[in-house]
């Protein structure tokens, strides 16, 4: 990595120890292999976002030269960025993977879910996710969540037990010691597994650079029509923006996270490649979620509440 920013940790190798990226990679691979060995029906949540792309990259390496012994699941809000969906499908085809898609739109169409007044579909993903887990009898679900993302996530286990309603109870979580992960669960329960628990946003980007991992184009600076809502740059689309009084303008932007278009904001940026993104993040004074996720701004405990209900 050729960035000289003061928040960037050196990745120079040391004879005695592993670099921080090597150590994080080995830990994540260990976790992924534990799941493949101890569970019957694991699945990897894959949105086409950078964290899930890194997770898939780690899974491909963990079992090389054999294929990944589990499939992918995407919860599609129906308002995803077209560039990301295209990337998702191309990746699945390139590696000969199996992809299940759970669609929020389907649930809205048949009345099982109702559109929210604010048009945001992120909180609506929980029900289709749980339905897909039940229907496919998935017993382990890999998620790309990181503990540095948010306060409620800081206390999340690597193996996070969910009851038959998919609920997370912070007081019922099992202590996790050494590298011994307890994945035992009763019928109907499942375990969410977070191999990137100990990674930060910067680690993810450094790893993407180090491994030359391809990402959807919207992670890099591009010219786009956007409008302001709730202090964020949102992109117009079928999801319902902009409204009257929300003028469109063309800006040079990129996305720090990719999610539902209705609540994922773009950041103004000229970072055109991984090295420039790393420099930008290292110098950034705003967290990833603070910069680009409207749903986490709703209340101080927004994430904690959604997690309890079975969100990612």
């Amino acid at each position: 990595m050729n960035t000289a920013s003061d928040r960037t940790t050196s990745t120079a190798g040391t004879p005695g120890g592993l670099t921080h990226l090597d150590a994080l990679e080995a830990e994540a691979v260990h976790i992924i292999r534990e799941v493949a060995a101890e569970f019957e029906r694991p699945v990897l949540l894959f949105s086409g976002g950078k964290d899930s792309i890194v997770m898939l990259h780690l899974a491909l390496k963990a079992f090389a030269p054999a294929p990944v012994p589990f499939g992918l699941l995407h919860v599609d809000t129906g308002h995803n960025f077209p560039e990301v969906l295209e990337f998702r499908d191309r990746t699945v085809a390139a590696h000969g993977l199996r992809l299940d898609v759970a669609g929020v739109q389907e649930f809205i169409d048949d009345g099982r879910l109702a559109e929210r007044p604010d048009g945001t579909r992120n909180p609506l993903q929980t029900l289709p996710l749980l339905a897909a887990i039940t229907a496919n009898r998935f017993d382990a679900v890999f998620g790309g969540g990181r503990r540095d993302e948010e306060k409620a996530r800081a206390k999340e286990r690597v193996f996070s037990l969910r009851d038959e309603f998919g609920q997370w109870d912070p007081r019922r979580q099992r202590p996790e010691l050494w590298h011994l992960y307890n994945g035992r669960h009763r019928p109907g329960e499942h375990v969410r597994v977070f191999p990137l628990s100990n990674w930060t946003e910067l680690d993810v980007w450094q790893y993407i650079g180090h491994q030359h991992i391809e990402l959807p184009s919207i992670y890099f600076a591009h010219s786009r029509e956007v409008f302001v809502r709730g202090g964020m740059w949102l992109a117009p689309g079928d999801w319902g923006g902009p409204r009257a009084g929300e003028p469109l303008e063309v800006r040079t932007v990129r996305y720090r996270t990719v999610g539902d278009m209705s609540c994922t904001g773009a950041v103004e940026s000229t970072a055109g490649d991984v090295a420039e993104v790393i420099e930008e993040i290292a110098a950034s004074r705003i967290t990833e979620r603070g910069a680009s996720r409207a749903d986490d701004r709703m209340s101080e405990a927004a994430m904690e509440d959604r997690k309890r209900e079975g969100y990612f």
Partner: protein
Amino acid sequence: MATLVRTAPAPPATQVSALLRLATAGSVDDGKSTLVGRLLYDTKSVLADQYEAVRQTSRDRGLAEADLALLTDGLRSEREQGITIDVAYRYFATPRRRFILADTPGHVQYTRNMVTGASTAQLAVVLVDARKGLTEQTRRHTAIAALLRVPRVLLAVNKMDLIEFDKDRFQEIEEDFSEYAASLGVLQAAALPVSALRGDNVVAASPDLGWFEGPTLLEYLETVPVSSVSEPTAGRFPVQYVIRRQNRGRTEAVEDYRGYAGTLASGSFAIGDEVVVLPSGQRSRISGIDLLGRPVDQARAGQAATLMLADDLDVSRGDLIAPADQAPVPTQDVAATVCHLSEGPLRVGDRVLLKHTTRTVKAVVRGLTHRLDVTEGIPAAGSVDARADSDAVGATGTGTDADAATGPEALHANDIGRVVLRTASPVLIEPYAADRETGSFLLINPDSGDTLTAGMAGDPLGVFS
């Protein structure tokens, strides 16, 4: 013997690792949350939106300045009760190192949380209030770090501003700590004066502590050696998963592949090494090593690797690959020091699952021989009651049911005690004091799946001999 390191000498660049895992312990009163908040804030790991949220909450509570302790407040249930209920992980980085900090609460009932946080830590930072000096809690935290074989323990003597930065008082506390740490067999102990609230000697040196010649807390964290202090250990490779690729049924021809995937628990392996697969005892030679798809000549501790053997053996998950001349002895009898984690008690006769490296076996609790009173820390060698004299259990030796006659009836949550287990099939367990990876295990309730107990084979503190 503990060596008190006052000035942490800057190690040669080759020894600086890029990742340090540390655990912090101390109570709210000692200012631990403030210290962790200060570290995050002063290393610029707290970003503007997080800081703004803290400033807002501080204002709402009528505080004049931002309360940095709020940065580490997690769940709403904790905020409501004003306590920390669990281990929280924090991440920060400087140009020299990346840090993973396990922040553990200091209440008596949360011994298990510190055990959890310390289990992966390479350094424990224990906080004391300079006005109070070493308290029961300090002793307990230091003892737990010693029990978990955290290689280094740093005492952060906080609130130095409240004792007028008194050098003599600091040295008194430092000497008490040094003596206590040495009695527990802590491998490396050190002490630093700080004021978390004012930021003295946390990230920047303080003019009020001009007499202190050692490093700031952050300098210490950036330069302390990460490697374990003990001698290099023999290679240990618990087989995690068998990777197979077969030509059969494929359209294009590929070579058959059979490799044993896992993470090296300790030591290293190289192509050509003579090895034994345990518990079966079959011998072979390493014919190839892959590091995540890339062929290499050698793999070392901490790496996720795939080993290939020269002979076609029956090897599966839970087996251990070890050097033929330095192999552990399979055993079904395990004596261990444990910390009970679960709300329900652990009793003699309980049938449990024992999870050790990648192997999970049925086991029964044959004996509970001691419960240690840790309110004042774990007793030093030789100070355990007379029952210890009749306890002839070795590191992985045999226990007898007679032990149960004199021991406690049960272990409850947060109890630290001594158990003797019998497993249904052999395990390749080694003394925890020699190897944290191959000496640690969990006991699991076979019905609920709950994690019951954290175990450390043998007698890591040497208190029972």
